[in-house]
């Protein structure tokens, strides 16, 4: 049946092209590859390249969307799958490419987009496996508990439903209780209010190696967004032995560092600085190892965030899931680019009615369960079911909980609107990118064969040419203003080549030179990520 559906979808795709036609579920690696190939073959503005193969043998794909001299046009990187359990991010990035080509192709006149749909293809495959659990790690073998034994205590599907959920064990020594608004949801007892825990909580499985910890060393692997160098967490499961140790991380960085035209990075993942922008912290920003967004960039982020909220109209976003070693922060703090991220979609807040106990603490799981019921989401919860468990011989053990993936990956049919709004926002943002122009070019005769040339170098965009962080980076080129002379011409005053570390949006700076000689000279101004312009002046 499934295979049939696929063939049918492919058939339609071949007939009508890919635009506007989406799959019925998230894509596994081969479906995604097929879909990306269709994008590339369906448009002369798209090309597809595999930049690495993971340890699990999966391709890391990059779609380049652009026209003309695309590596010298200001560019954005659009990144999905930074978190392996967030398949929505893969879908959002892929749809961005599809929708851009079908509905917004004119955006490519001024901007190139490098789309990396899935940075965690080893991990996302777990969604399609016979045993489903939320996986972030790649296929690298890791001794997660560092005890010298490999994968000796993985999850166990105790209830045999093909999913890993949770276990709760009734135990007075435990710290957990049920949520007052929905007793399927477990929360920590608030001892400050005199509450006493009644349960212990574990992931579904056994203590296979009898070391007292449950499921602490399964297949593991290294998380793409725990392996980058900003705020890298040392010696925690999933982070690896050192930062940027993994093929996919390295390949992507190696690639980005060759793309001097990239000014912005947009990430579909748990990190979210669009619903609420990063806050400037003076102490953190003035330390040698900077831990806060810089002041000017905080304002830039706020500007983007306001525009985003106005565009997508999605409220009550969950707290940003950014973490040490992640990509969203790396792209700003280490790469120096405008870095924006959003999950793209989240569970809307359900307004309870009088029949429901109020969700006073705005518990996200309670809200999810109410929303899922309201929307008739299939199989979103595994009801707690009592089981015999050899590790807890005389205790009541139940297995159940929210089904893996469901809370952050809605049925794909539900994300059309969110996808369109996010794509539109990115297109609007690109429309505001820096655009270096030469304006008000003047040449005056000074006498004795000398000409004074004056020009304003102007940023016609709304965004600055450089983030404040980017001005510090060796890996973002300054705005370069060059006077190109021919033989017999000489600069009498002014430097022939000048650089600027930034031009604000709508900002300008005037340059002038005194040139001796005849004929004409050319002026070039710009940088690959900020646009370039040139002009010819006739010497008087």
């Amino acid at each position, binding site marked *: 049946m499934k295979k049939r559906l696929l063939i049918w979808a492919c058939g339609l795709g071949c007939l009508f092209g890919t635009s506007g036609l989406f799959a019925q579920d998230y894509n596994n690696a081969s479906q995604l590859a097929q879909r990306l190939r269709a994008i590339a073959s369906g448009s002369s503005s798209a090309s597809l390249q595999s930049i690495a193969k993971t340890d699990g043998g999966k391709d890391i794909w990059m779609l380049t969307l652009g026209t003309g001299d695309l590596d010298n046009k200001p560019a954005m990187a659009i990144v999905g799958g930074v978190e392996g359990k967030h398949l929505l991010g893969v879908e959002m990035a892929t749809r961005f490419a599809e929708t851009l080509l079908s509905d917004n192709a004119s955006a490519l006149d001024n901007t190139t987009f490098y789309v990396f749909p899935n940075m965690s293809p080893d991990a996302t495959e777990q969604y399609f496996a016979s045993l489903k659990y939320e996986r972030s790690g790649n296929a690298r073998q890791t001794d997660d508990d560092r005890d010298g034994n490999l994968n000796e205590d993985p999850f166990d599907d105790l209830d045999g439903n093909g999913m890993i959920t949770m276990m709760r064990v009734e135990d007075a020594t435990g710290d957990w209780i049920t949520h007052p608004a929905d007793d399927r949801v477990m929360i920590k007892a608030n001892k400050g209010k005199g509450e006493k825990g009644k349960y212990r909580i574990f992931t579904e499985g056994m203590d296979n190696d009898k070391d007292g910890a449950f499921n602490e060393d399964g297949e593991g692997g290294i998380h793409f967004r725990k392996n980058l160098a900003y705020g890298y967490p*040392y010696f925690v499961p999933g982070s690896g*032995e*050192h930062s940027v140790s993994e093929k996919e991380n390295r390949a992507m960085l190696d690639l980005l560092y060759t793309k001097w035209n990239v000014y912005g990075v947009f990430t579909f993942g748990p990190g979210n600085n669009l619903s609420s922008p990063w806050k400037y912290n003076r102490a953190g920003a003035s330390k040698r190892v900077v831990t806060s967004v810089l002041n000017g960039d905080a304002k830039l982020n706020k500007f983007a965030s306001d525009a985003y909220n106005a565009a997508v109209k999605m409220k009550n976003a969950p707290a940003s899931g950014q973490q040490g070693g992640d990509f969203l922060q790396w792209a700003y703090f280490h790469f120096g680019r405008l870095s924006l991220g959003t999950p793209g979609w989240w569970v809307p807040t359900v307004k309870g009615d009088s029949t429901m106990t109020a969700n006073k603490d705005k518990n996200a799981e309670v809200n999810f369960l109410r929303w899922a019921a309201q929307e008739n989401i299939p199989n979103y919860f595994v009801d707690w079911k009592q089981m015999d468990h050899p590790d807890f011989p005389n205790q009541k053990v139940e297995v159940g909980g929210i089904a893996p993936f469901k809370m952050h990956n809605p049925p794909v049919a539900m994300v059309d609107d969110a996808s369109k709004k996010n794509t539109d926002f990115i297109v609007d943002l690109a429309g505001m990118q820096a655009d270096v122009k030469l304006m008000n070019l003047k040449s005056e005769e000074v006498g004795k064969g000398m000409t004074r040339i004056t020009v304003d170098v102007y940023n016609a965009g709304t965004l600055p040419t450089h983030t404040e962080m980017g001005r510090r980076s060796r890996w973002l080129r300054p705005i370069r203003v060059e006077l190109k002379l021919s033989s017999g011409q000489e600069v009498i005053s002014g430097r022939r080549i000048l650089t600027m570390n930034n031009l604000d949006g709508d900002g300008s700076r005037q340059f002038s030179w005194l040139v001796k000689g005849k004929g004409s000279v050319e002026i070039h101004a710009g940088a690959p990520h900020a646009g370039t312009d040139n002009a010819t002046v006739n010497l008087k």
Partner: protein
Amino acid sequence: MKRYITNLFAGLILVGLTLPVTSFAQSSDEVFRAAGSPHNPKVNISFNRYYTSEGIAEITDKIAKAYPDLVRRVSIGKSYEGRDIWMLQVTNYKKGTADRKPAFYVDGNIHSNEIQGAEICLYTAWYLTENFGDVKYITEMLDDRIFYIVPTINPDARNNYMKEANTGSSPRSGMLPLDDDRDGLVDEDGLDDLDGDGSVTRMRRKSDYGSFIVDPLDPRKMIQIGPDDVVTAQRYEMLGSEGIDNDGDGRVNEDRPGVYDPNRDWAWKWQPDYIQRGALKYPFSAPENRAVADFVLSRPNIAGAQSFHNSGGMILRGPGAEEDLATYNRADLRIYDAIGRKGQKMLPGYRYLTVYKDLYSVFGGELDWFYGSRGVYTFTNEIFSSFAYYKDPNGGRNQGYDFDKELLANDAFTPWAPYDHPTYGEIEIGGFKKNFGRATPGFMLEEELHRNMAFALYHAHHMPKLSIDKVTEKDLGGGLKEITAIIKNDRMMPTHASQDLKYKIERPDFVSISGVDVQAGMIVQSIDLGLTTEQKHNPQKLILASIPGNSTVTLRWIVSGRGKYTITVDSAKGGVVTR
């Protein structure tokens, strides 16, 4: 002329290759042993000169071929320009399992102009192999330990330093091309050896407004004019290092080969270029460093490490960065201090110092990665200081002029000579050559190599040395027997540095017993008071977080059954011992 010499040298090497290596040895009638040195080595190496990367490749090959039972020569990876990064793995291969012995890692030359480290490495491999069997300390060292020796981890730029236009302080970098002046062009305006003396020295120009004069007592030396000085002599202005504005951008020597710092490329607390100048894109962006890191990650038996730099006469430990102060904890510092202070004694003129407070506060250094990320006690020595000229701690740098004249026959200085410079016009070029100031002069080199090697060997000596010292039995009746074993570590280092224990970097040590039925197993805190901690699960394989240095751990099993049993200690950094 120069080419002729290189060809001749290459020819000699070829001849050396075709002849059996032993043919280099003297007849034993002709020599008399000097204490502490191999007197009739199979491999003859001159230790009063330096070797190019090809020279190193050749010598390591000779040593490996002369001592097949003691040396494996492997390439751990390729440099940016495609050279092999050669490693000698030196141990007694006839005893034990080589890669399970406690290992000592040594490298040199990460900064390409800091060349002595390679020769220290060659000397160490040579000394170990030539003395094995003759000297007990060395023989035991190779029976019990393995040395991973990488003479140069920057072979491309080592050659660039030796063969191209450089000062004594350049290139320091590796050869990955970078756009230093961010003008979109790469490595387009490097240093120039204008006078063709093989070194980049200094440029000066006569100038009525200059702030220097020539020392009337020594025409090599420039003296800076003070604010109250009355000057009648010709004034000069200094114009920097030899070079021209190759790209016509109005700046001289501003975009050289490289430039980055390979010792800001290591993954412990790594920071990007805007925080830590010299950093590359991300940790281990330099392929040479990545090769080292990948090797080290594959060898959990490495317990001690040493890297060699120059100069200044220092034995350095981390932290490199002040922000990383907390990583170096007290228990580990006791071991660092003991080895470092011994080094001060073994290396006159050297001081035992801490990078962040005595040198500079930097992130991404090699020694911090070895310790912070791998839990390996690691030193960096800065070879050579001006102390060496006249063994005078207060002598200062100016002694170099006397030393050049009195002991080096004026070979270290290019006398000032006129030059017609395309931008500056009539100038003079002269100064100390690149092989002076940082690189140890030839006649002192062997001593420098030996003392630094001896320090590394002392460090290696104190890697864990485990034994099962005593095993006692007690009949408990009812077919039960109590077996108590004392595991001893004879040396200063524990099997797990406290940094290692803090993060469980390396797996624990395992002590297992086989041949009997184990009913219970426990770690004994006090034999006298009978205090023990039982390991409930899998008692035949007791898990020890660490075996402390100069100390013992007592273990006990309650067993049933008769017959012979075997106890095995299995430690990543302490090796495998069976009794």
